[in-house]
């Protein structure tokens, strides 16, 4: 376990030592491997790069329901940044994203630690924590909408039991609706994080624990200062998966609150999709998605260069 997060370096192909010519390198060497990887290369080039460039290009046009507009320069961006709804959406995503990321990671890790205590019925508990991940955002939203609906759900039930002043109206309260979203989102996603974290915990050498015990380090400090840093690899993977899910949050919001009350739970992905399919303003929608992507780039690229970029030889 000496090489977490640096595994790429050990897996260089054997031929790396030979110094062949450039053309040979590009076209002939490992030709089967290149053919095998070509679907991925094609997908990256055509879809992920091609379509992204396509969408960036059309964000500079006044395209309506179809991509066929005229070039209008920065107009769509100027409008985007002066739109209140966009500001609200971006702020919401930032708030929700940070809370959601911290919450799912912390709760997922804590659950994993608890699950790692030689529990009885571990399989049963793990299934319980994981099953929400099998449900779509739409279903998750619908069920929680029902539970949190003041007139149908928890509030009316508890009031029915006699506590008549009990209030749980987050879903209809503009100040609290993001936390309602958080309850449903956490429910949906923590199980998966827990499984990843549990996997990380179990990959750690038992010797570490023995050593920590011999040194008399308390359990919580062992977790925090020794185990957690050793799990860097799994934490990184989890962050990518959870983070990309958060940025794309759409289904859950549509089913749970549809952005309401008012605009108080709007998110950027919903802005994009609304302007694309309901308002018939492709240019505006693509400007919004370009800004989303840029924001992700700014956050991720420096980290990716460190994490996945070309590595120095060991």
């Amino acid at each position, binding site marked *: 376990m000496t090489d977490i997060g640096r595994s790429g370096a050990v897996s260089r192909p054997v031929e790396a030592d030979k110094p062949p010519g450039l053309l040979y390198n590009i076209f002939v060497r490992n030709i089967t491997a290149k053919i095998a990887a070509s679907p991925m290369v094609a997908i990256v080039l055509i879809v992920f790069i091609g379509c992204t460039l396509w969408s960036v290009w059309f964000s500079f046009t006044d*395209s*309506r*329901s179809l991509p*066929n507009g005229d070039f209008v320069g920065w107009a769509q961006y100027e409008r985007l940044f002066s739109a209140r709804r966009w500001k609200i959406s971006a702020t919401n995503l930032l708030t929700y994203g940070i809370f959601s990321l911290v919450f799912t990671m912390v709760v997922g890790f804590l659950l994993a630690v608890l699950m790692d205590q030689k529990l009885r019925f571990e399989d049963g508990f793990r299934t319980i924590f994981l099953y929400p991940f099998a449900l779509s955002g739409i279903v998750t939203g619908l069920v929680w909408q029902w539970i949190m609906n003041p*007139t149908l759900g928890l509030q009316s039930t508890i009031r029915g039991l006699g506590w008549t002043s009990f209030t749980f109206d987050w879903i209809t309260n503009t100040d609290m609706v993001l936390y309602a979203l958080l309850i449903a989102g956490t429910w949906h996603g923590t199980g998966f994080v827990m499984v990843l974290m549990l996997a990380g915990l179990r990959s750690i050498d038992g010797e570490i624990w023995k050593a920590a015990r011999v040194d008399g380090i308390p359990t919580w400090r062992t977790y925090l200062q020794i185990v957690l840093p050793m799990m860097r690899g799994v934490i990184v993977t989890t962050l990518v998966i959870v983070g990309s899910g958060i940025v794309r949050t759409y289904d859950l919001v549509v089913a749970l609150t549809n952005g*309401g*009350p008012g605009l108080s739970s709007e998110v950027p992905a919903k802005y994009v999709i609304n*302007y694309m399919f309901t308002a*018939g303003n492709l240019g505006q929608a693509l400007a919004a998605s370009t800004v989303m992507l840029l924001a992700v780039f700014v956050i991720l690229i420096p980290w990716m260069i460190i994490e996945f970029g070309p590595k120095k030889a060991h």
Partner: protein
Amino acid sequence: MKKFTVVAAMAAAMMSSTAAMAAELEVTHWWTSGGESAAVAEFARLFNETGNTWVDSALAGSGTGANPVIISRILGGDPMGATQMNTGRDAEGLIQAGLIRDLTPLAEEEGWKDFYADPGLFDACTYDGKIYCVPVNIHSWHWLWLSTGAYEKIGQPVPKDWNEYVASWPALREAGVVPFGLAAGWALNGIPGVLLADVGGPDLYMKINKDHDAEAVRSPEFRKVAEAWAALRDVVDPAEVVPQFGDVANQLLAGEAAGNIHGDWIQGEFAVAGATPGVEYDCLPGLGLTDRIEGGGDAFYFPVLPEGTAQDVLDAQTTLAKLLVSKEAQVAFNLKKGSMPIRTDIDLSTANDCMKKAITILESPEGLLPSGETLNSSDTQQQLDDLNQEFFADKSYSVDDYIEEYAAIIESAD
């Protein structure tokens, strides 16, 4: 597999010897609620009686459910035989790309403009002087629906106009009745337009929506509209908002809510529940304040089918287009849908009192104001919706700020 409509149609034609001119036609629409599907079933029934087969493709939710699917399929070369689609500028792109069938020859042959109650309805279907869609009904948001049961509870007569209705709110609250029943989401979006035209008056409505006159937004008349909107906002308790407009219909019938401003299609829900106007509920067109109401239609488009499509299928498109506006279909469809028919030369003696009120308005000259959906692009409409949603949810959002934001949108509107 790809051109399913075609293959299926050919297979059907080969198998059935009795109906030589029969074809299957896939029709996409987003009419999935009780009243709506009962109404569309009438179209299907009549179409099937012609020997053709209506293949129903219902997709709930216009914006996220149906729209992307309809546009993508037409764009991708796998079009349906006919489809409901938002009129106005949404379809323009597809028309420009030559993907929508030009109905002008058919319209002239059949003399559509002669019998349409208001030929202005075709404005939304017209592009470059040609007609590309068939309006099948006239819908209006301009209705105040009132629950007779709720007013019995507070021992007051059912209001005769908006002002009386507003005055009854405190008594309703006291009696534990929800003054204004509201469904979440889009159900809110139609209300400000109604207040604009009815509280503000048709002139103000036209100045703002047609001329895009931002000064009209800053006028004292518009302030009255904004204040009415704010008053409505303040009487609605967000915790009482229900999921769907059908739920509001149920609230009204049960006397749990007293009133609601909603499109005439809510009548379809009343009808499904077996309610009659004047007994369980009452209706006030133009909020009882004006006798000109705004209306726009649902419309069907007929995509250009891929080359090599059997003549039967093309004929079936024509048959359906003619059928949609026929007297028989108009009566059957609109009675179920709760909307106004596009022609008044038909027997609507079985129409209920609310629809009769609507037809009177329709028959009077200039009774119908052009719909906001036709005057504004859906992009402008979306911006107004966003503003209204935000204003309605935030009780601290001041009327002054609202007017300024509104004016800014109108200034850049198209």
